[in-house]
């Protein structure tokens, strides 16, 4: 039943998704499709349930919430899968780098198993792509805010997720860093050809001025 209506091009789809808390809905039914490389920004006032929606998609929804509707990634229904089996990458506001591992360790951690040297090479390349060449053996606590954010994102991406969720990833960075990092993120997503959902308050984070208004439940376009 789940794959019938999904077209070839659509990678990720939400169908009539609702999240309830104590029998009251947080927002109206949400439905949308995303294709590879597409970034959809979710906007709405604080407390409208943006992070909760991401939690429902990633599989980390707290047990006080219940959720209805369908979540499909490459045609697979994610609804009942444990978080570890969804293959959905999550990037939080905080960097959440593991303090007991160095930069290389943090990145190796998310790489799939395989040949030791090849994995190390992958990390090296990833660091170079982020302008962090030679940072392998640095202690994560010694990094600057922007460097931490980039290592964090690299870590999420090296796990080769099929969908990327970004929960206000730029909000802790200052304006200059924010622009740099946004460009970096968008480039990576484009390059990986995966859909992404981005929770934000900043209109500049919207790709093509499109965004999901969680209050109305519609995809709207921001008019300049």
């Amino acid at each position, binding site marked *: 039943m789940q794959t019938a209506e999904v077209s070839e091009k659509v990678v990720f789809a939400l169908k009539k998704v609702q999240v309830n808390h104590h029998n009251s809905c947080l927002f109206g039914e949400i439905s949308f499709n995303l294709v590879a490389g597409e970034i959809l920004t979710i906007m709405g006032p604080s407390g409208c349930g943006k992070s909760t929606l991401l939690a429902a998609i*990633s*599989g*980390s929804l707290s047990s006080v919430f219940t959720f209805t509707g369908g979540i499909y990634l490459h045609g697979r229904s994610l609804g009942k899968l*444990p*978080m*570890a*089996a*969804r*293959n*959905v*990458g*999550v990037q*939080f506001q*905080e960097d*959440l780098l*593991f*303090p*007991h*591992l160095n930069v*290389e*360790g943090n990145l*190796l*951690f*998310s*790489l*799939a*198993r*395989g040949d*030791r040297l090849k*994995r190390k090479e992958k990390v090296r390349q990833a660091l170079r792509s982020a302008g962090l060449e030679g940072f392998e053996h640095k202690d994560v606590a010694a990094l600057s805010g922007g460097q931490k954010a980039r290592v964090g994102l690299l*870590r*999420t991406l090296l*796990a080769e*997720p099929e969908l990327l969720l970004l929960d206000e990833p730029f909000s802790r960075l200052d304006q200059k860093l924010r622009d740099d990092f946004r460009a970096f993120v968008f480039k990576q997503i484009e390059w990986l050809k995966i859909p992404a959902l981005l929770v934000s308050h900043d209109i500049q984070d919207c790709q093509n001025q499109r965004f999901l208004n969680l209050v109305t439940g519609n995809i709207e376009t921001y008019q300049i």
Partner: protein
Amino acid sequence: MVMVRLLAFKIFIAVVFVLPIAFGLIGTWLPAFGYFPSIGRNSFSWQPLLSMLSHPSTVSSIETTVLTGLLSTFLAFLISQWLCMGLYQGSSWRWLNRFVGPLLAVPHLAFAIGLSFLLSPSGWIVRLISPSITGFVLPPDWLLVNDTLGLSLSLGLVLKEVPFFLLMSMAAMAGLNTDKTLQVAASLGYSHHQAWCKLIFPQIYSQLRLPIVAVLSYSLSVVDLSIVLGPVAPSTFSVLIIQWFGDADLNFRLLGAAGTVLLLVMLILSIGLLFMLEKILRSLAAEWLVYGAVKKKNWWCCFTSAWLARTSALFILLISLLSIVVLLINSFSQQWRFPNFLPSAWSLKYWIKSWHQLVEPLLNTAIIGFSSALIALVLSVVLLEWQSRSMTGQKKQKAAVSKRLLWLIYIPMLVPQVSFLFGIQVLVIGLGLEGNFAVLIWSHLLFVLPYSYLSLSQVYLRYDNRYLQLAEILSGSRLKSLFKIKLLMLLKPLAFSFAVGFSVSVTQYLPSLYVGAGRVSTLTLETVALATGSDDRVTSVFSLWQFALPLIVYILAIAIPRFYFRHCKGM
């Protein structure tokens, strides 16, 4: 100004904690090297060490001691970590949190007495199935308790130390972003258990190193638990030392003193072994940590099931509970012989009789426990506040210094009590302070402070000092802000730390014996004296009192903050 304060602090720590212990060690070591003028030995020699080593019981006694010490420490640690992994985020985590306190309040001695009554061939478990299932009209002649390998002792130690490790792990986890870390790992394709082993455990381990050493030291040098559950001929090494110290032939005291030297050496070697093992494991695990997620299920997945962890936690709780229940029944029994499952005659006599000899020790125990726990709490807060300020002030070097200083506080917890208390006794008598209440409180404080500090430090240091800064700006008073904002917000952990300290004080036996000089009777002194007698009923009554006192404090420690903040959901 800061330097002066640091110096003053160092001197304070040295005078209060290090000097007396150094003196105690020397006072105990002198006889070990033959110098003991009290019995006419005025010259130094290796003789006591040699006689101690060649005593027929020494070698096998050390073997069992090391075996039980290492085995029980290792198992208790493993089980506690496994329970944390299996139960965290589960429905049982909450009640585990709630039961850790009361479990810690069960004094070792009371627990051991109850446990031996549960497990022995004429004990409660065999009675439950006798004669109906087993057909036993007489208790079987099985060597279950006091076995020669020390397995029953190890079991007792494991059951008693798992709650302590759980408490310490919970405290360590409070300093991490555990939930979010697990989420990140899950989004990277890691199962809960892999994520725990690779991310949470390595991070909390550094906080658990000290508790491990403390438990190791305790397991190697425990006396009361070992007398009740340990092997008899020969006994564990610490019991052998106590035996030598108590031998009517005074020359054996030299052997006892020599034994304490060896015990300390054993402990240092064991700690060295532990650190070496840690280093090896760490280098072996470095690769494994970042090896990537395992997607398929492993053969050991049955061990990771929450069900098994829950059952084990329940089992530990049940055994501890039954040990107390057995004591309770015993205290109300008049006659209770094998194979009766319940006493054949009941009586209130022993509770009523105990009352008039209970008041004084009960009061003393409460006052000493209250004072030492309170002083320890105040000292812990001062230390931690100082630490937390120096951490935010980016004075890294100073923070490192304070860390080294903190090890000094831990010394009384790490060095076996028998190896310095005789020397302390001489010191206290030399100063004419024996039986002095304040000195007795100080001697308890030595052992209470490390536990009190350890149970508070993580939560305290994690506190968001911005609340305090804000309060200081608003009120203009540092002290007022500290008391009215920070400490009040931390009321729950502060109360809990107080309860931990109190229960540590209540169970102290040797300090009360050596420093109290028979002038101050405490519940534990009375209980241990009664435990050498034949009347289980009276012993049970006193053991239960010894348990009730810390239990009440634990319950208050949980109830008072809850009542105080009953209208504040955020607390």
